[in-house]
């Protein structure tokens, strides 16, 4: 594999990793606060649809993004009401949200645009445009570093940079602020937080809503940056890969970045089976590459390579003692 091809593959890895990373961080907030969320997929899908639909109608990708974030937050609120207020089963609520989004996005798309289950192609300002980082053109000719900077790092949409920035921001928020300390505590020992006179319910709701915002951005990225419009089931299991990445990263922000880049790389490779064959000299089944993130996660879950210990109060509704 020559350097140009490598950079090309890495470039698409970054593109694929972005929605994973956003969804993974979304899950991170929620699960650190003790709310399991297998509805990441659904929130992303709903956001992907609505942001494409609104971007097309309004002609502005930013308005679309806002709408996507809005619908994802709405679903997050539903998850919160079910699992925090009514102490319902968080897993079942997540399953329901996934189905709700899968069904509604198609039903509404059909009645809105009458083009089957898709939105019209987005063009112009309805899509996020690629940004060129400063000096990208001037540095392009510098050996090695030049292509790395101007081809790999530069030339993505703003959401990619936003996602990358979200990693240190999340780390800072969770580990360097009072809010973060409390949020993590509420996922480990909600009773202690409650005893300290801090509202468990409010903390958990804010975590779930942050999760909604990030899922919304992830969904908007899919339909207004990565592709030009919404198609049925376009998240294609990314919510679950993000969940896998979250476990792989053991609920830590920086590790989430590395894991998502790795999983993005696997997705990029799955599209170029010819490259693997040329490099390794033998044929690797595409299906194996597709399944690899899941297989790796099962191995991590099994504790064969370091143990993944979830937040202790995860999945349990908090009942104040009377």
């Amino acid at each position: 594999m020559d350097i140009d091809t490598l950079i090309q593959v890495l470039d698409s890895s970054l593109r694929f990793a972005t929605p994973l990373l956003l969804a993974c961080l979304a899950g991170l907030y929620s699960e650190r606060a003790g709310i399991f969320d297998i509805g990441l997929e659904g929130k992303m899908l709903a956001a992907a649809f609505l942001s494409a639909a609104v971007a097309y109608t309004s002609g502005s990708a930013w308005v679309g993004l806002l709408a996507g974030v809005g619908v994802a937050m709405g679903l997050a609120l539903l998850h919160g009401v079910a699992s925090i207020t009514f102490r319902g089963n968080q897993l079942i609520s997540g399953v329901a949200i996934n189905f709700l989004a899968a069904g509604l996005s198609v039903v509404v798309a059909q009645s809105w645009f009458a083009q089957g289950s898709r939105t019209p192609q987005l063009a112009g300002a309805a899509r996020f445009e690629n940004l060129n980082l400063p000096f990208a053109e001037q540095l392009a000719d510098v050996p090695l570093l030049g292509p790395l900077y101007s081809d790999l790092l530069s030339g993505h949409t703003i959401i990619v940079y936003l996602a990358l920035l979200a990693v240190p921001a999340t780390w800072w928020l969770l580990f360097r602020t009072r809010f973060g300390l409390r949020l993590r505590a509420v996922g480990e020992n909600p009773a202690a937080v409650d005893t300290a006179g801090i509202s468990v319910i409010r903390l958990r709701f804010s975590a779930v809503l942050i999760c909604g915002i990030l899922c919304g951005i992830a969904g908007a990225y899919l339909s207004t940056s990565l592709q030009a419009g919404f198609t049925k089931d376009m998240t294609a299991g990314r919510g679950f890969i993000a969940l896998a990445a979250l476990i792989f990263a053991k609920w830590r922000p920086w590790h989430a970045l590395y894991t998502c880049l790795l999983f993005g790389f696997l997705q990029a490779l799955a599209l170029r089976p010819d490259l693997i064959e040329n490099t390794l000299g033998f044929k690797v089944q595409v299906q194996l590459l597709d399944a690899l993130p899941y297989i790796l996660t099962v191995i991590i879950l099994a504790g064969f390579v370091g143990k993944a210990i979830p937040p202790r109060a995860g999945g349990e509704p908090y009942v104040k003692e009377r």
Partner: protein
Amino acid sequence: MEKMPKWADVILIPMISLILAAIISAFVIMAIGENPLIALQKMVDGAFGNTQNIGYTLYYTTNFIFTGLAVSVAFHARMFNIGGEGQALVGGLGVAIVCLYIPWPHWSLALLGASLGAAMFGAMWAAIPAYLQARRGSHIVITTIMFNFIAASLLNYMLVGPLKPLGSMEPASAPFPEATHLPNFQEMFNPIWQIFAGEEAKAIFLRSPANITFFLAVIACFVVWALIWRTRLGYQLRSYGLSETAAKYAGISPFKIIMIAMLISGGLSGLMAVNQAQGDAERLVLNAVEGAGFIGIAVALMGRSHPFGVFLAALLFGALYQGGAELAFWTSIPREMIVVIQALVILFTGALDNMVRMPLERLFIAKNRKQEG
């Protein structure tokens, strides 16, 4: 102790949840500019309007009975088997291998063999997450989700690779041999019907995929009922589900219970493939399960994990599924509307159960107090 009467728990609450789901579905249908009453009529017609439609409804019902029972058995041991989808996919692999590579003399033996193959493959696919939960403490929900995706990749590989017949372009196995053909409802009931209605009478269950596997599903309901409520194992399963610590003190091995519950659960999911692959398609195709594994969750929740409830809920979802297909045919409401209805059923009967239950409980307690006072 003040409690709700049992009928309220098993009938009233699911009914209210169902009505809430129906009301919101009606709003969705109205929002996209269609009449919910006409939609309902089309759906009922589509599900039960003639024997062919009933045949389709019962075909889907059969699928959902198996996956619903699968989720129920795991629920009794307080495990959430979300992997029905993958287990049914791998069960299909079992059916295909049994049907393609063993020369069966008669369909009845083929049915037995395929059922065994399906159940064993499904159980095997559930065994790994079960073992990981029991021995290594990995969360069963997450591992079974992962196994759904791994199963999808595996099937993908098998159907474009080893199982695909030479020269075929389609991602599907070779057609199963003639001898494995299961009697469908038309072949089973038409001769009887003609005795009563005369030779020239219009055939019943014409071209519908319902087949003898439906009765296998009904038998499975009885077997699961007997297992859960009439055997020592079922008792242990339920006790473990109610209280793990109490069960441990009573000498029940959690490892054994987790493994057995999940093996049965996976086996039942796998059996769904008999209906789909052997009964209808007569070969293994891509995406054969079509979400039935997930619908099993809704069915189990609606049916309160009781085989009889599962049967009724599966019938309801079978009718929804078939009615939804007809709905898409006759109106501009897409087929995915049934996914929305299904989601709302899961939401209200599962996640928002307390929303209905808490006020009702208060109501009953107030009523009891009044009677006592």
